[in-house]
Protein backbone atom coordinates (compact mmCIF):
# COMPACT_ATOMS: atom_id res chain seq x y z
CA UNK A 1 0.00 0.00 0.00
CA UNK A 2 1.49 3.33 -0.98
CA UNK A 3 2.05 6.13 1.46
CA UNK A 4 -0.78 8.42 0.40
CA UNK A 5 -3.31 5.68 1.03
CA UNK A 6 -1.93 4.39 4.30
CA UNK A 7 -1.90 7.91 5.67
CA UNK A 8 -5.47 8.79 4.92
CA UNK A 9 -7.51 5.67 4.84
CA UNK A 10 -7.69 2.14 6.11
CA UNK A 11 -7.91 -0.70 3.62
CA UNK A 12 -11.59 -1.61 3.59
CA UNK A 13 -10.83 -5.14 2.41
CA UNK A 14 -8.29 -6.02 5.10
CA UNK A 15 -9.46 -8.56 7.70
CA UNK A 16 -8.15 -8.55 11.27
CA UNK A 17 -7.16 -11.79 12.97
CA UNK A 18 -9.44 -13.32 15.62
CA UNK A 19 -9.11 -16.49 17.65
CA UNK A 20 -11.73 -19.16 18.26
CA UNK A 21 -12.30 -19.37 22.02
CA UNK A 22 -15.33 -21.69 22.03
CA UNK A 23 -16.82 -24.00 19.45
CA UNK A 24 -19.63 -26.53 19.41
CA UNK A 25 -22.03 -28.06 16.93
CA UNK A 26 -25.61 -26.88 17.49
CA UNK A 27 -26.99 -29.60 15.23
CA UNK A 28 -25.71 -31.67 12.30
CA UNK A 29 -24.85 -28.66 10.12
CA UNK A 30 -24.66 -25.55 12.29
CA UNK A 31 -21.43 -24.66 14.07
CA UNK A 32 -21.36 -22.14 16.90
CA UNK A 33 -18.16 -20.13 17.30
CA UNK A 34 -17.11 -17.65 19.95
CA UNK A 35 -14.30 -15.37 18.74
CA UNK A 36 -12.02 -12.92 20.38
CA UNK A 37 -10.17 -10.28 18.45
CA UNK A 38 -6.37 -10.67 18.55
CA UNK A 39 -6.04 -6.93 19.00
CA UNK A 40 -7.89 -7.25 22.31
CA UNK A 41 -10.30 -4.56 21.17
CA UNK A 42 -14.01 -5.42 21.22
CA UNK A 43 -15.80 -4.90 17.94
CA UNK A 44 -18.42 -2.15 18.22
CA UNK A 45 -21.60 -3.34 16.57
CA UNK A 46 -25.37 -3.18 16.86
CA UNK A 47 -27.76 -6.16 16.61
CA UNK A 48 -28.60 -6.98 12.98
CA UNK A 49 -25.16 -6.32 11.57
CA UNK A 50 -22.83 -8.86 9.98
CA UNK A 51 -19.11 -9.46 9.50
CA UNK A 52 -17.04 -10.80 6.60
CA UNK A 53 -15.22 -13.93 7.76
CA UNK A 54 -12.02 -14.96 5.98
CA UNK A 55 -9.81 -17.99 5.74
CA UNK A 56 -6.74 -17.09 3.71
CA UNK A 57 -6.50 -19.38 0.69
CA UNK A 58 -10.15 -20.35 0.77
CA UNK A 59 -12.10 -17.13 0.75
CA UNK A 60 -14.45 -14.84 2.53
CA UNK A 61 -18.20 -14.81 3.26
CA UNK A 62 -20.70 -12.60 5.07
CA UNK A 63 -21.87 -14.09 8.38
CA UNK A 64 -24.51 -12.68 10.75
CA UNK A 65 -23.48 -11.72 14.24
CA UNK A 66 -25.41 -13.81 16.76
CA UNK A 67 -24.11 -12.30 19.98
CA UNK A 68 -25.24 -9.09 21.60
CA UNK A 69 -22.87 -6.14 22.00
CA UNK A 70 -23.65 -6.40 25.73
CA UNK A 71 -21.52 -9.53 25.91
CA UNK A 72 -17.81 -10.13 25.43
CA UNK A 73 -16.46 -11.41 22.14
CA UNK A 74 -18.26 -12.23 18.94
CA UNK A 75 -20.59 -15.20 18.40
CA UNK A 76 -21.27 -16.60 14.95
CA UNK A 77 -23.26 -19.60 13.75
CA UNK A 78 -22.05 -21.05 10.49
CA UNK A 79 -23.90 -23.61 8.38
CA UNK A 80 -21.77 -26.15 6.55
CA UNK A 81 -22.95 -25.32 3.06
CA UNK A 82 -20.03 -24.28 0.84
CA UNK A 83 -16.26 -24.44 0.44
CA UNK A 84 -15.45 -21.77 3.01
CA UNK A 85 -17.94 -22.88 5.63
CA UNK A 86 -16.78 -26.50 5.27
CA UNK A 87 -13.25 -25.34 6.08
CA UNK A 88 -14.47 -23.24 9.01
CA UNK A 89 -16.19 -26.33 10.41
CA UNK A 90 -12.79 -28.05 10.64
CA UNK A 91 -11.33 -25.32 12.85
CA UNK A 92 -10.76 -25.96 16.55
CA UNK A 93 -10.51 -23.81 19.66
CA UNK A 94 -7.31 -21.76 19.41
CA UNK A 95 -7.41 -21.62 15.61
CA UNK A 96 -7.52 -18.23 13.95
CA UNK A 97 -9.54 -16.67 11.18
CA UNK A 98 -9.89 -13.21 9.66
CA UNK A 99 -12.79 -10.88 10.43
CA UNK A 100 -13.73 -7.48 9.06
CA UNK A 101 -16.75 -5.38 9.84
CA UNK A 102 -19.26 -4.84 11.28
CA UNK A 103 -21.32 -3.96 8.22
CA UNK A 104 -24.88 -3.21 7.32
CA UNK A 105 -28.00 -1.79 8.90
CA UNK A 106 -29.22 -2.62 12.39
CA UNK A 107 -32.39 -3.61 14.15
CA UNK A 108 -34.30 -0.56 15.46
CA UNK A 109 -32.71 -0.93 18.88
CA UNK A 110 -33.54 2.59 20.07
CA UNK A 111 -36.85 3.03 18.30
CA UNK A 112 -38.12 -0.24 19.75
CA UNK A 113 -37.78 0.96 23.34
CA UNK A 114 -41.07 0.87 25.22
CA UNK A 115 -42.72 -1.23 22.52
CA UNK A 116 -43.89 -4.83 22.48
CA UNK A 117 -41.55 -6.91 20.35
CA UNK A 118 -42.30 -10.06 18.38
CA UNK A 119 -39.51 -12.11 16.83
CA UNK A 120 -40.47 -14.60 14.12
CA UNK A 121 -37.58 -16.91 13.35
CA UNK A 122 -37.39 -19.68 10.77
CA UNK A 123 -34.51 -22.16 11.00
CA UNK A 124 -31.15 -20.45 10.89
CA UNK A 125 -33.03 -17.11 10.94
CA UNK A 126 -32.88 -17.41 14.71
CA UNK A 127 -29.14 -16.68 14.55
CA UNK A 128 -29.17 -12.92 13.76
CA UNK A 129 -32.43 -12.42 15.69
CA UNK A 130 -30.74 -13.84 18.78
CA UNK A 131 -28.42 -10.82 18.77
CA UNK A 132 -31.35 -8.45 19.28
CA UNK A 133 -33.21 -10.84 21.62
CA UNK A 134 -30.18 -11.07 23.92
CA UNK A 135 -29.69 -7.32 23.74
CA UNK A 136 -33.32 -6.78 24.79
CA UNK A 137 -32.97 -9.29 27.64
CA UNK A 138 -29.89 -7.39 28.85
CA UNK A 139 -31.93 -4.14 28.82
CA UNK A 140 -35.17 -5.82 29.78
CA UNK A 141 -36.86 -2.92 31.56
CA UNK A 142 -36.53 -0.67 28.51
CA UNK A 143 -38.76 -2.82 26.28
CA UNK A 144 -42.37 -4.00 26.44
CA UNK A 145 -43.59 -7.58 26.07
CA UNK A 146 -41.19 -9.90 24.24
CA UNK A 147 -42.52 -12.81 22.20
CA UNK A 148 -40.25 -15.16 20.27
CA UNK A 149 -41.61 -17.64 17.71
CA UNK A 150 -39.19 -20.25 16.49
CA UNK A 151 -39.93 -22.61 13.63
CA UNK A 152 -37.55 -25.37 12.62
CA UNK A 153 -37.84 -27.91 9.82
CA UNK A 154 -37.29 -30.95 12.03
CA UNK A 155 -36.54 -31.87 15.63
CA UNK A 156 -32.84 -32.54 15.05
CA UNK A 157 -32.22 -29.15 13.40
CA UNK A 158 -33.26 -27.09 16.45
CA UNK A 159 -30.68 -24.48 17.49
CA UNK A 160 -29.63 -23.14 20.92
CA UNK A 161 -31.81 -25.70 22.73
CA UNK A 162 -30.53 -25.00 26.26
CA UNK A 163 -30.77 -21.27 25.76
CA UNK A 164 -34.33 -21.52 24.43
CA UNK A 165 -35.26 -23.70 27.40
CA UNK A 166 -33.91 -20.97 29.68
CA UNK A 167 -35.88 -18.33 27.81
CA UNK A 168 -39.02 -20.46 28.19
CA UNK A 169 -38.58 -20.46 31.96
CA UNK A 170 -38.40 -16.69 32.16
CA UNK A 171 -41.54 -14.91 33.26
CA UNK A 172 -40.70 -11.75 31.31
CA UNK A 173 -40.86 -13.25 27.83
CA UNK A 174 -42.94 -15.70 25.82
CA UNK A 175 -41.22 -18.27 23.66
CA UNK A 176 -43.14 -20.59 21.34
CA UNK A 177 -41.51 -23.27 19.28
CA UNK A 178 -42.75 -25.41 16.43
CA UNK A 179 -41.30 -28.00 14.12
CA UNK A 180 -42.52 -28.69 10.59
CA UNK A 181 -42.42 -32.47 10.85
CA UNK A 182 -43.73 -34.45 13.85
CA UNK A 183 -41.15 -36.36 15.92
CA UNK A 184 -41.42 -39.01 18.67
CA UNK A 185 -39.47 -36.87 21.13
CA UNK A 186 -41.50 -33.72 20.47
CA UNK A 187 -44.74 -32.92 22.26
CA UNK A 188 -44.90 -29.27 21.21
CA UNK A 189 -46.57 -27.53 18.28
CA UNK A 190 -46.18 -29.16 14.87
CA UNK A 191 -46.52 -27.05 11.73
CA UNK A 192 -44.86 -24.11 10.04
CA UNK A 193 -44.04 -20.99 12.05
CA UNK A 194 -47.13 -19.13 10.83
CA UNK A 195 -49.28 -21.54 12.87
CA UNK A 196 -47.93 -19.82 16.00
CA UNK A 197 -48.94 -16.31 14.96
CA UNK A 198 -52.58 -16.61 16.18
CA UNK A 199 -51.21 -17.57 19.61
CA UNK A 200 -49.36 -14.28 20.11
CA UNK A 201 -50.78 -12.43 23.09
CA UNK A 202 -49.20 -9.01 22.42
CA UNK A 203 -51.29 -6.40 20.68
CA UNK A 204 -49.81 -7.23 17.27
CA UNK A 205 -50.82 -4.08 15.35
CA UNK A 206 -49.00 -2.04 18.00
CA UNK A 207 -45.93 -4.30 18.21
CA UNK A 208 -42.69 -4.23 16.25
CA UNK A 209 -42.25 -7.53 14.44
CA UNK A 210 -38.83 -8.82 13.42
CA UNK A 211 -38.80 -11.57 10.77
CA UNK A 212 -35.85 -13.69 9.66
CA UNK A 213 -35.83 -17.06 7.95
CA UNK A 214 -35.37 -18.86 4.64
CA UNK A 215 -36.60 -17.03 1.48
CA UNK A 216 -39.73 -19.19 1.23
CA UNK A 217 -40.88 -18.24 4.72
CA UNK A 218 -41.21 -14.46 4.28
CA UNK A 219 -44.17 -14.45 1.95
CA UNK A 220 -46.29 -16.61 4.25
CA UNK A 221 -45.32 -14.78 7.42
CA UNK A 222 -45.92 -11.39 5.84
CA UNK A 223 -49.34 -12.50 4.58
CA UNK A 224 -50.24 -13.76 8.04
CA UNK A 225 -49.12 -10.46 9.60
CA UNK A 226 -51.15 -8.49 7.06
CA UNK A 227 -54.21 -10.51 8.04
CA UNK A 228 -53.91 -9.42 11.65
CA UNK A 229 -53.35 -5.78 10.61
CA UNK A 230 -49.68 -5.31 11.47
CA UNK A 231 -48.66 -2.14 9.61
CA UNK A 232 -45.80 -2.64 7.14
CA UNK A 233 -43.68 0.00 8.83
CA UNK A 234 -43.75 -2.02 12.05
CA UNK A 235 -42.22 -5.07 10.37
CA UNK A 236 -38.47 -5.57 9.99
CA UNK A 237 -37.10 -8.27 7.72
CA UNK A 238 -33.54 -9.52 7.69
CA UNK A 239 -32.45 -10.52 4.18
CA UNK A 240 -29.44 -12.40 2.88
CA UNK A 241 -27.66 -12.13 -0.43
CA UNK A 242 -24.38 -13.08 -1.94
CA UNK A 243 -21.88 -10.44 -0.86
CA UNK A 244 -18.27 -10.14 -1.86
CA UNK A 245 -17.14 -6.76 -0.57
CA UNK A 246 -19.61 -5.91 2.20
CA UNK A 247 -19.11 -2.21 1.49
CA UNK A 248 -21.43 -1.37 -1.40
CA UNK A 249 -19.01 -1.76 -4.29
CA UNK A 250 -19.05 -5.26 -5.79
CA UNK A 251 -22.71 -5.28 -6.82
CA UNK A 252 -23.51 -8.85 -5.84
CA UNK A 253 -25.99 -8.25 -3.05
CA UNK A 254 -28.10 -5.72 -4.91
CA UNK A 255 -31.87 -6.12 -4.76
CA UNK A 256 -33.24 -3.57 -7.17
CA UNK A 257 -31.87 -0.22 -6.00
CA UNK A 258 -30.79 -1.45 -2.56
CA UNK A 259 -27.47 -2.86 -1.50
CA UNK A 260 -28.15 -5.47 1.18
CA UNK A 261 -24.69 -4.85 2.65
CA UNK A 262 -25.39 -1.15 3.19
CA UNK A 263 -29.14 -0.56 3.19
CA UNK A 264 -29.71 -4.00 4.77
CA UNK A 265 -29.54 -6.73 5.90
CA UNK A 266 -32.29 -5.39 8.17
CA UNK A 267 -34.99 -3.60 6.18
CA UNK A 268 -38.20 -2.04 7.29
CA UNK A 269 -40.77 -3.92 5.23
CA UNK A 270 -42.55 -0.73 4.17
CA UNK A 271 -39.28 0.40 2.52
CA UNK A 272 -39.41 -2.68 0.30
CA UNK A 273 -42.82 -1.93 -1.17
CA UNK A 274 -41.33 -1.12 -4.59
CA UNK A 275 -38.57 -3.68 -4.42
CA UNK A 276 -39.90 -6.76 -6.20
CA UNK A 277 -36.60 -8.65 -6.01
CA UNK A 278 -36.61 -8.55 -2.22
CA UNK A 279 -38.29 -11.87 -1.59
Amino acid at each position, binding site marked *: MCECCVQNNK*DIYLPAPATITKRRMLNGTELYLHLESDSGKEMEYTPGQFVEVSL*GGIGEAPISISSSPTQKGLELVIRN*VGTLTRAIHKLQVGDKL*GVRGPYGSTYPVEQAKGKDLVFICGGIGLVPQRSFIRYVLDHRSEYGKVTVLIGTKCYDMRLFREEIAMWQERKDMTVMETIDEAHDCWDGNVGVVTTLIPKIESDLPKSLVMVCGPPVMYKFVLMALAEVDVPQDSIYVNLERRMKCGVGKCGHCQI*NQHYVCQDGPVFRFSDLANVP*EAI
Partner: protein
Amino acid sequence: MSVNTISKDRFKQFVEALIQSDQRVVGVQARGDRFVFDDLKAADALRLDYDVTILSPRKYVLPPKEPLLKFDGRASYESLQESEPMVLLGVHPYDMAAINQMDLLFSQDEYDNHYMCRRKKMTIIACDVATPSENVFAASMGTATVDSGYDMLLTDIGDAYVVEAATDNGKALMNLMPDARPASEADIEKRQAVWKKNEHDLNKHMLECKPSFLPKLLEKNYDHPVWEEKARLCYSCGSCNQVCPTCYCFDVQDEVNWDLKTGVRYRAWDGCLLQDFATVAGDHNFRKDRAARFRHRLYRKGKYVPGKIGGQIACVGCGRCITACTAKIANPVDVYNQLMERTDIG
Protein backbone atom coordinates in the same frame (compact mmCIF):
# COMPACT_ATOMS: atom_id res chain seq x y z
CA MET B 1 -6.75 26.18 -17.59
CA SER B 2 -4.54 27.01 -20.55
CA VAL B 3 -5.41 26.36 -24.18
CA ASN B 4 -2.66 25.97 -26.76
CA THR B 5 -2.19 24.68 -30.26
CA ILE B 6 0.49 22.29 -31.44
CA SER B 7 1.14 20.95 -34.91
CA LYS B 8 0.70 17.21 -35.40
CA ASP B 9 4.42 16.77 -36.17
CA ARG B 10 5.42 18.49 -32.96
CA PHE B 11 2.77 16.56 -31.06
CA LYS B 12 4.45 13.35 -32.19
CA GLN B 13 7.68 14.60 -30.64
CA PHE B 14 5.77 15.20 -27.41
CA VAL B 15 4.50 11.61 -27.43
CA GLU B 16 8.07 10.35 -28.04
CA ALA B 17 9.28 12.41 -25.07
CA LEU B 18 6.46 11.03 -22.96
CA ILE B 19 7.37 7.46 -23.87
CA GLN B 20 11.00 8.18 -22.94
CA SER B 21 9.95 9.53 -19.51
CA ASP B 22 9.83 7.32 -16.44
CA GLN B 23 6.03 6.96 -16.56
CA ARG B 24 4.17 4.09 -18.11
CA VAL B 25 2.36 5.36 -21.22
CA VAL B 26 -0.78 3.63 -22.46
CA GLY B 27 -2.33 4.80 -25.71
CA VAL B 28 -4.80 3.79 -28.40
CA GLN B 29 -3.39 1.60 -31.14
CA ALA B 30 -4.71 -0.41 -34.07
CA ARG B 31 -5.19 -4.13 -33.60
CA GLY B 32 -6.23 -5.63 -36.93
CA ASP B 33 -9.05 -3.44 -38.15
CA ARG B 34 -10.06 -2.43 -34.63
CA PHE B 35 -8.49 -0.43 -31.81
CA VAL B 36 -7.26 -1.13 -28.29
CA PHE B 37 -5.65 0.65 -25.36
CA ASP B 38 -2.19 -0.84 -24.83
CA ASP B 39 1.33 0.14 -23.69
CA LEU B 40 2.68 2.61 -26.20
CA LYS B 41 6.17 1.79 -27.49
CA ALA B 42 6.40 4.30 -30.34
CA ALA B 43 4.67 7.56 -31.13
CA ASP B 44 3.86 6.29 -34.61
CA ALA B 45 1.64 3.58 -33.14
CA LEU B 46 -0.70 6.11 -31.49
CA ARG B 47 -4.02 6.40 -33.34
CA LEU B 48 -5.99 9.38 -32.07
CA ASP B 49 -8.21 9.08 -35.14
CA TYR B 50 -9.70 5.83 -33.76
CA ASP B 51 -13.44 5.27 -33.66
CA VAL B 52 -13.83 3.17 -30.50
CA THR B 53 -11.65 0.67 -28.64
CA ILE B 54 -12.72 -2.95 -28.10
CA LEU B 55 -12.44 -2.60 -24.31
CA SER B 56 -12.78 0.71 -22.55
CA PRO B 57 -9.94 2.27 -20.52
CA ARG B 58 -11.70 0.79 -17.49
CA LYS B 59 -9.17 -2.03 -17.84
CA TYR B 60 -6.52 0.37 -16.46
CA VAL B 61 -8.69 2.18 -13.94
CA LEU B 62 -10.16 -1.04 -12.53
CA PRO B 63 -7.98 -3.87 -13.89
CA PRO B 64 -9.69 -7.13 -14.92
CA LYS B 65 -7.82 -8.86 -12.11
CA GLU B 66 -6.27 -6.97 -9.24
CA PRO B 67 -4.52 -8.14 -6.07
CA LEU B 68 -6.15 -6.77 -2.90
CA LEU B 69 -4.05 -8.43 -0.23
CA LYS B 70 -1.69 -11.26 0.48
CA PHE B 71 -2.22 -13.84 3.17
CA ASP B 72 0.01 -16.12 5.16
CA GLY B 73 -2.09 -18.83 6.70
CA ARG B 74 -5.69 -18.42 7.71
CA ALA B 75 -5.62 -15.14 9.55
CA SER B 76 -2.57 -13.08 8.61
CA TYR B 77 -3.27 -10.50 5.92
CA GLU B 78 -1.36 -7.61 4.37
CA SER B 79 -2.67 -5.02 1.90
CA LEU B 80 -1.28 -5.03 -1.61
CA GLN B 81 -1.17 -2.00 -3.85
CA GLU B 82 0.67 -2.36 -7.10
CA SER B 83 -0.26 0.77 -8.99
CA GLU B 84 2.38 2.83 -10.79
CA PRO B 85 2.33 6.29 -12.36
CA MET B 86 0.66 6.03 -15.74
CA VAL B 87 -0.37 8.27 -18.59
CA LEU B 88 -3.57 7.21 -20.33
CA LEU B 89 -3.50 8.74 -23.79
CA GLY B 90 -6.49 9.11 -26.07
CA VAL B 91 -9.53 8.70 -23.80
CA HIS B 92 -12.73 9.69 -25.60
CA PRO B 93 -15.21 11.96 -23.80
CA TYR B 94 -17.76 9.18 -23.18
CA ASP B 95 -15.04 7.01 -21.58
CA MET B 96 -13.88 9.99 -19.53
CA ALA B 97 -17.45 10.44 -18.30
CA ALA B 98 -17.48 6.77 -17.28
CA ILE B 99 -14.21 7.15 -15.35
CA ASN B 100 -15.58 10.26 -13.61
CA GLN B 101 -18.56 8.21 -12.45
CA MET B 102 -16.39 5.37 -11.22
CA ASP B 103 -14.22 7.83 -9.27
CA LEU B 104 -17.34 8.92 -7.42
CA LEU B 105 -18.54 5.38 -6.76
CA PHE B 106 -15.23 4.14 -5.38
CA SER B 107 -14.64 7.18 -3.18
CA GLN B 108 -18.13 7.59 -1.71
CA ASP B 109 -19.20 5.82 1.50
CA GLU B 110 -16.40 3.34 2.13
CA TYR B 111 -13.29 4.76 0.45
CA ASP B 112 -11.67 2.15 -1.81
CA ASN B 113 -8.00 3.03 -1.65
CA HIS B 114 -6.96 0.29 -4.08
CA TYR B 115 -8.93 2.06 -6.78
CA MET B 116 -8.36 5.63 -5.65
CA CYS B 117 -4.62 5.25 -5.15
CA ARG B 118 -4.25 4.02 -8.71
CA ARG B 119 -6.37 6.88 -10.00
CA LYS B 120 -4.29 9.46 -8.18
CA LYS B 121 -1.20 8.20 -9.96
CA MET B 122 -2.87 8.38 -13.35
CA THR B 123 -2.64 11.24 -15.81
CA ILE B 124 -5.41 11.24 -18.38
CA ILE B 125 -5.02 12.84 -21.77
CA ALA B 126 -8.49 12.82 -23.30
CA CYS B 127 -9.19 13.46 -26.96
CA ASP B 128 -12.33 14.47 -28.77
CA VAL B 129 -13.74 11.92 -31.19
CA ALA B 130 -12.38 12.30 -34.73
CA THR B 131 -14.15 9.29 -36.27
CA PRO B 132 -17.59 8.26 -35.02
CA SER B 133 -17.95 4.50 -34.50
CA GLU B 134 -20.80 2.53 -36.06
CA ASN B 135 -22.80 2.27 -32.83
CA VAL B 136 -21.91 5.33 -30.80
CA PHE B 137 -24.82 7.26 -29.25
CA ALA B 138 -22.90 9.49 -26.84
CA ALA B 139 -24.77 12.54 -28.14
CA SER B 140 -28.00 11.01 -26.86
CA MET B 141 -26.43 10.53 -23.43
CA GLY B 142 -24.83 13.98 -23.14
CA THR B 143 -21.30 12.59 -23.32
CA ALA B 144 -20.23 13.52 -26.85
CA THR B 145 -18.01 16.09 -25.15
CA VAL B 146 -16.69 16.24 -21.62
CA ASP B 147 -15.53 19.11 -19.44
CA SER B 148 -13.94 17.49 -16.42
CA GLY B 149 -11.84 14.60 -15.18
CA TYR B 150 -9.00 14.85 -17.69
CA ASP B 151 -5.62 16.44 -17.11
CA MET B 152 -5.33 17.40 -20.74
CA LEU B 153 -7.80 17.47 -23.62
CA LEU B 154 -6.80 17.21 -27.27
CA THR B 155 -8.97 18.23 -30.18
CA ASP B 156 -7.96 17.41 -33.75
CA ILE B 157 -8.48 20.53 -35.85
CA GLY B 158 -6.93 19.21 -39.08
CA ASP B 159 -3.19 19.78 -39.18
CA ALA B 160 -2.90 20.52 -35.46
CA TYR B 161 -4.29 19.72 -32.04
CA VAL B 162 -5.86 22.19 -29.68
CA VAL B 163 -4.43 21.26 -26.28
CA GLU B 164 -6.20 22.20 -23.08
CA ALA B 165 -4.25 21.66 -19.85
CA ALA B 166 -6.84 21.40 -17.10
CA THR B 167 -4.82 20.38 -14.04
CA ASP B 168 -1.35 20.83 -12.59
CA ASN B 169 -0.45 17.45 -14.08
CA GLY B 170 -1.66 18.64 -17.45
CA LYS B 171 0.26 21.90 -17.15
CA ALA B 172 3.42 19.98 -16.26
CA LEU B 173 2.99 17.97 -19.44
CA MET B 174 2.93 21.22 -21.40
CA ASN B 175 6.63 21.50 -20.53
CA LEU B 176 7.19 18.60 -22.92
CA MET B 177 5.56 20.69 -25.68
CA PRO B 178 7.93 23.67 -26.02
CA ASP B 179 6.59 24.37 -29.49
CA ALA B 180 2.98 24.79 -28.43
CA ARG B 181 1.65 28.31 -28.82
CA PRO B 182 -1.45 29.85 -27.28
CA ALA B 183 -4.48 28.84 -29.31
CA SER B 184 -5.69 31.53 -31.69
CA GLU B 185 -9.30 32.57 -31.79
CA ALA B 186 -9.63 30.71 -35.07
CA ASP B 187 -8.30 27.51 -33.46
CA ILE B 188 -10.73 27.86 -30.57
CA GLU B 189 -13.53 28.25 -33.09
CA LYS B 190 -12.39 25.13 -34.90
CA ARG B 191 -12.52 23.29 -31.60
CA GLN B 192 -16.02 24.57 -30.97
CA ALA B 193 -16.97 23.32 -34.42
CA VAL B 194 -15.63 19.84 -33.61
CA TRP B 195 -17.69 19.79 -30.41
CA LYS B 196 -20.79 20.94 -32.21
CA LYS B 197 -20.28 18.36 -34.94
CA ASN B 198 -19.76 15.57 -32.40
CA GLU B 199 -22.83 16.56 -30.45
CA HIS B 200 -24.69 15.94 -33.66
CA ASP B 201 -22.79 13.06 -35.27
CA LEU B 202 -22.16 10.76 -32.30
CA ASN B 203 -25.73 9.59 -32.43
CA LYS B 204 -26.05 6.42 -34.47
CA HIS B 205 -28.90 5.34 -32.22
CA MET B 206 -31.14 8.12 -31.05
CA LEU B 207 -32.65 8.01 -27.58
CA GLU B 208 -36.14 9.41 -27.81
CA CYS B 209 -36.07 11.03 -24.39
CA LYS B 210 -33.65 13.06 -22.34
CA PRO B 211 -31.34 10.76 -20.38
CA SER B 212 -32.54 12.44 -17.18
CA PHE B 213 -35.97 10.94 -17.84
CA LEU B 214 -34.67 7.34 -17.73
CA PRO B 215 -35.07 6.74 -13.97
CA LYS B 216 -38.72 7.71 -14.20
CA LEU B 217 -39.24 5.73 -17.41
CA LEU B 218 -37.81 2.62 -15.79
CA GLU B 219 -39.79 3.08 -12.63
CA LYS B 220 -42.95 2.69 -14.67
CA ASN B 221 -41.85 -0.33 -16.68
CA TYR B 222 -40.59 -3.03 -14.36
CA ASP B 223 -43.01 -5.60 -15.77
CA HIS B 224 -42.81 -4.47 -19.38
CA PRO B 225 -42.85 -7.33 -21.97
CA VAL B 226 -39.63 -6.06 -23.58
CA TRP B 227 -37.49 -7.66 -20.86
CA GLU B 228 -38.82 -11.10 -21.66
CA GLU B 229 -38.87 -10.52 -25.43
CA LYS B 230 -35.22 -9.48 -25.58
CA ALA B 231 -33.92 -11.87 -22.95
CA ARG B 232 -35.37 -14.85 -24.77
CA LEU B 233 -32.37 -14.55 -27.09
CA CYS B 234 -29.80 -13.81 -24.37
CA TYR B 235 -26.88 -16.26 -24.04
CA SER B 236 -26.03 -14.96 -20.54
CA CYS B 237 -22.48 -14.57 -21.81
CA GLY B 238 -21.79 -11.27 -20.06
CA SER B 239 -20.16 -9.67 -23.14
CA CYS B 240 -22.20 -6.51 -22.57
CA ASN B 241 -20.78 -6.29 -19.03
CA GLN B 242 -17.27 -7.04 -20.21
CA VAL B 243 -17.06 -4.19 -22.73
CA CYS B 244 -19.06 -1.64 -20.71
CA PRO B 245 -17.02 1.34 -19.44
CA THR B 246 -19.36 1.85 -16.45
CA CYS B 247 -19.71 -1.77 -15.26
CA TYR B 248 -17.67 -2.17 -12.10
CA CYS B 249 -19.07 -5.24 -10.32
CA PHE B 250 -16.39 -7.62 -9.15
CA ASP B 251 -15.85 -11.04 -7.65
CA VAL B 252 -13.23 -11.79 -4.98
CA GLN B 253 -11.20 -15.01 -5.01
CA ASP B 254 -8.17 -16.38 -3.16
CA GLU B 255 -5.28 -17.98 -5.03
CA VAL B 256 -3.09 -20.11 -2.85
CA ASN B 257 0.57 -20.92 -3.52
CA TRP B 258 2.20 -24.37 -3.60
CA ASP B 259 2.91 -24.20 0.11
CA LEU B 260 -0.90 -24.22 0.60
CA LYS B 261 -0.40 -21.45 3.13
CA THR B 262 0.52 -18.20 1.42
CA GLY B 263 -1.20 -16.56 -1.49
CA VAL B 264 -3.05 -13.57 -2.84
CA ARG B 265 -6.67 -12.43 -2.66
CA TYR B 266 -7.74 -10.92 -5.98
CA ARG B 267 -10.74 -9.11 -7.21
CA ALA B 268 -11.78 -9.70 -10.80
CA TRP B 269 -14.45 -8.31 -13.09
CA ASP B 270 -17.81 -9.99 -12.77
CA GLY B 271 -20.99 -9.52 -14.77
CA CYS B 272 -24.60 -9.35 -13.65
CA LEU B 273 -25.74 -11.11 -16.84
CA LEU B 274 -23.84 -14.25 -15.86
CA GLN B 275 -26.11 -16.97 -14.56
CA ASP B 276 -24.65 -17.35 -11.06
CA PHE B 277 -24.07 -13.68 -10.28
CA ALA B 278 -26.66 -13.65 -7.48
CA THR B 279 -26.40 -17.28 -6.36
CA VAL B 280 -25.74 -17.85 -2.66
CA ALA B 281 -24.35 -20.92 -0.90
CA GLY B 282 -26.94 -23.65 -0.95
CA ASP B 283 -27.58 -22.87 -4.64
CA HIS B 284 -30.40 -20.40 -4.16
CA ASN B 285 -30.23 -17.99 -7.12
CA PHE B 286 -31.87 -14.65 -6.39
CA ARG B 287 -31.86 -13.65 -10.07
CA LYS B 288 -32.22 -16.92 -11.91
CA ASP B 289 -34.32 -15.75 -14.86
CA ARG B 290 -32.48 -14.35 -17.87
CA ALA B 291 -35.06 -11.61 -18.21
CA ALA B 292 -34.46 -10.50 -14.61
CA ARG B 293 -30.70 -10.29 -15.24
CA PHE B 294 -31.21 -8.52 -18.56
CA ARG B 295 -33.49 -6.01 -16.85
CA HIS B 296 -31.10 -5.56 -13.95
CA ARG B 297 -28.30 -4.32 -16.22
CA LEU B 298 -30.49 -1.69 -17.84
CA TYR B 299 -31.92 -0.65 -14.48
CA ARG B 300 -28.45 -0.27 -13.08
CA LYS B 301 -27.47 1.99 -15.96
CA GLY B 302 -30.68 3.99 -16.01
CA LYS B 303 -31.89 4.06 -12.41
CA TYR B 304 -29.92 2.33 -9.67
CA VAL B 305 -26.41 3.74 -10.21
CA PRO B 306 -27.80 7.20 -11.07
CA GLY B 307 -29.40 7.08 -7.61
CA LYS B 308 -25.92 6.82 -6.11
CA ILE B 309 -24.22 9.54 -8.18
CA GLY B 310 -26.60 12.44 -8.23
CA GLY B 311 -28.67 11.38 -11.21
CA GLN B 312 -25.87 10.87 -13.73
CA ILE B 313 -26.96 8.11 -16.10
CA ALA B 314 -24.55 5.19 -16.00
CA CYS B 315 -24.69 4.56 -19.74
CA VAL B 316 -22.33 6.85 -21.63
CA GLY B 317 -23.36 5.85 -25.14
CA CYS B 318 -20.12 4.23 -26.31
CA GLY B 319 -22.11 1.58 -28.17
CA ARG B 320 -19.66 -1.22 -27.31
CA CYS B 321 -22.38 -3.52 -25.93
CA ILE B 322 -24.29 -3.20 -29.19
CA THR B 323 -21.25 -4.39 -31.14
CA ALA B 324 -20.31 -7.10 -28.64
CA CYS B 325 -23.70 -8.73 -28.22
CA THR B 326 -23.95 -11.97 -30.23
CA ALA B 327 -27.72 -12.04 -29.98
CA LYS B 328 -28.04 -8.36 -30.97
CA ILE B 329 -30.28 -7.54 -28.03
CA ALA B 330 -28.02 -5.36 -25.85
CA ASN B 331 -28.70 -1.97 -27.45
CA PRO B 332 -29.86 0.19 -24.51
CA VAL B 333 -31.39 2.81 -26.83
CA ASP B 334 -33.50 0.19 -28.52
CA VAL B 335 -34.84 -1.03 -25.17
CA TYR B 336 -35.40 2.42 -23.69
CA ASN B 337 -37.14 3.58 -26.88
CA GLN B 338 -39.43 0.57 -26.78
CA LEU B 339 -40.35 1.52 -23.23
CA MET B 340 -41.04 5.07 -24.43
CA GLU B 341 -43.40 3.79 -27.12
CA ARG B 342 -45.65 2.17 -24.60
CA THR B 343 -45.37 4.66 -21.77
CA ASP B 344 -47.51 7.64 -21.03
CA ILE B 345 -44.85 10.25 -20.37
CA GLY B 346 -47.24 12.48 -18.46
